[in-house]
């Protein structure tokens, strides 16, 4: 409570807009910046400020309930509304904190990987991508979601392609991502179009209200749901639609890979939750079927197939990327149960996976930074040559496996409990099997690092060459967070329970104010 009083009143009122507008405007501005240090410092400052504002909003939501913001003073459902509630406030905080932590890391990493004249635009594009993700999560207007989805996607394509100064394979992978991402976004837009056709509104809550009147029998609504699930499925790398992800993660600049892996799919997952549970009604037969068969089913397929694929990759980044697809599978399994426990577990895994996967990719970036290592077989002796980085990698890797005392264990346990409560005993078997596969692919890397001899150059062992502090601090922040929240998981679990409660309440019914025949000019001066 005390913490909340530290935030100025203005932030709590205008925060929902400010967290999007600030990075957007500053992003435009620093494209001009002559000095990359200045761009970096500004980016760092802006992401930090957004993080603080998100924290303020989260505390406000916890203590005083949802916040609504009417863009431009136009009252919903006419205007674009931004809203922060228990479901999206933690995601906002997650995205901005990860961005803040990763930006610290960007300073050495971007210098090593991006050409000098592209560095300021790099930070500008990063801020745009960040703003897009925040906007996607904070907005309560269905079409606004599409716009921010594209803002973040388009800047992401450019950022992935910037990895081409390190490895030219970044270009075709970015192109592949562009094609798949655009198809996904367009499917989503089509779905929104069908919804608009039936409901005549774009405000999500109003949409939910009209959809309740229309009911589940309407074919257009069913079609809209299908388009939205497939569109978002492409964006969140649902198992058979994940083909863009491994290459995009592997060849993007390492700082951005860490940010992307930790946040991009999470924002899309949030949208899936938001649409399935609060816009549509999960009790409708076609939605409950889709949740059980498609979302949970594909989640399970992804957990197994992507984990298997991860085992056979030779590139570290591809191993982790396939593991990301598998982890999305866990989250989808939790969502697919559609019970309070299942949703809590899925949501918890969204937060936890972001922390551990962020740490892992940061460590991989550091390996490349010092030794140019991208292959699992080149990790020999890293435990000796880069002890701190490798230790951070190991902590996060153990968390990925789900060793007790780490966040991975907390969310897997929650997921198993939810499955047991639901009577899905086979799902527990799948979780255990997938974790065993995770032991194989993570263990393979850890084994290389600690139990293989340090390679020799000219008959001399390679000297210890630790990553710089600017890389170690963000890495260890996330690695320690994954242990801290693993030991005391009270806070993230309570956030996840809050989110599950919002989802469990189902469509929020908003009583529509009586509207004039045409949208009246919202004037303070009456006629």
């Amino acid at each position: 409570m005390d913490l909340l009083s530290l935030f100025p009143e203005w932030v709590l009122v205008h925060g929902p807009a400010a967290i999007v507008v600030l990075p957007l405007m500053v992003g435009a501005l620093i494209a001009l910046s002559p000095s990359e240090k200045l761009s970096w410092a500004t980016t760092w400052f802006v992401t930090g400020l957004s993080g603080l504002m998100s924290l303020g909003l989260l505390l406000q939501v916890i203590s005083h309930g949802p916040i609504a913001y009417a863009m431009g003073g136009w009252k919903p459902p006419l205007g674009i509304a931004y809203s922060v509630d228990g479901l999206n406030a933690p995601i906002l905080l997650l995205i901005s904190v990860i961005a803040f932590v990763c930006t610290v890391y960007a300073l050495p990493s971007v210098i090593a990987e991006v050409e000098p004249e592209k560095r300021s635009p790099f930070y500008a594009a990063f801020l745009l991508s960040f703003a897009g993700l925040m906007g996607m999560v904070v907005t309560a207007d269905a079409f606004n979601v599409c716009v921010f989805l594209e803002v973040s996607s388009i800047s992401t394509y450019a950022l992935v392609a910037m990895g081409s100064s390190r490895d030219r394979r970044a270009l075709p992978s970015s192109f592949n991502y562009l094609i798949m991402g655009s198809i996904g976004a367009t499917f989503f837009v089509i779905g929104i179009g069908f919804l608009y056709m039936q409901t005549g509104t774009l405000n999500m809550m109003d949409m939910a209200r009209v959809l309740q009147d229309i009911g589940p029998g309407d074919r257009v609504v069913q079609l809209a749901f299908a388009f939205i699930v497939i569109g978002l499925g492409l964006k969140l790398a649902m198992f058979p639609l994940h083909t863009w992800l491994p290459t995009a993660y592997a060849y993007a600049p390492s700082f951005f890979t860490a940010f992307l892996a930790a946040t991009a799919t999470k924002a899309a997952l949030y949208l899936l939750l938001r649409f399935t549970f609060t816009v549509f009604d999960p009790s409708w037969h076609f939605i409950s079927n889709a949740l059980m068969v498609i979302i949970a089913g594909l989640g399970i397929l992804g957990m197994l197939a992507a984990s298997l694929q991860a085992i056979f990759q030779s590139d570290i980044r591809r191993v982790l990327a396939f593991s990301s697809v598998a982890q999305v599978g866990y989250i989808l399994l939790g969502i697919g149960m559609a019970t309070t426990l299942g949703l809590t577990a899925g949501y918890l895994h969204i937060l936890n996976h972001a922390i551990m996967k962020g740490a892992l990719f940061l460590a991989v970036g550091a390996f490349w930074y010092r030794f140019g290592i991208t292959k699992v077989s080149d990790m020999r002796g890293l435990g000796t040559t880069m002890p701190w980085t490798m230790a951070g990698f190991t902590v996060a890797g153990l968390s990925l496996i789900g060793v007790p005392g780490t966040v991975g264990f907390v969310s897997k346990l929650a997921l198993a409990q939810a499955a047991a409560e639901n009577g899905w005993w086979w799902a527990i078997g799948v979780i255990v099997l997938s974790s065993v596969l995770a032991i194989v692919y993570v263990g393979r890397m850890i084994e290389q690092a600690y139990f293989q001899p340090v390679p020799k150059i000219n008959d001399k062992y390679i000297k210890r060459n630790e990553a710089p502090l600017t890389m170690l601090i963000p890495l260890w922040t996330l690695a320690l967070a994954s242990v801290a929240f693993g030991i005391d998981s009270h806070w993230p679990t309570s956030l996840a329970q809050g989110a599950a409660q919002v989802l469990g309440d189902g469509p929020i019914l908003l009583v529509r104010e009586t509207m004039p025949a045409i949208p009246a000019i919202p004037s303070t001066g009456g006629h």
Partner: protein
Amino acid sequence: MKRARKRARANKMGRSENQHIILRVVAKLLIPLIAVYGLYVHFHGDYGPGGGFQAGVIFASSIILYALIFGLDEAKRVVPPSWIRVIMTLGGLVFGGTGVATWLLGGEYLNYTMFAPDSTHAAGQHWGIFAVEIGVLLTVTSVILAIFYAFGSRGGSRRPNNAPNLSDEDKS
């Protein structure tokens, strides 16, 4: 070798100048008209169809036409690429700044009513949209030009030196 290429280029230039004289004269007449039409579409956007997006594209097309006829280098002399980056940012800032101004005046983001809260006929909306549309015009114009310059100033086909030779065996 170098001189020969230069001569060939000069020849080509000379020929094109002769051939395209009608094009050049017509363009000189048309370009200002297109630009003015762009501005018309922009300012008419207050009352009818139009606005910053369309106007920006029309305005940019006048410069693109200039570049197509007189060459990219000439166009870059008229509108230097360094300006474009500045204008692009400026447009974004005008748009965003309008919102920040409404914040400073105590309203929601982009709540234009704050510009003239006492107006009986929503003059604030008018001013707000005017400012925002200027921002849109600047950004759209400069972005379209930036895209055109970026593609136009790329060299012809270059095969990379290090591209491996691709024989049929490799493909299989």
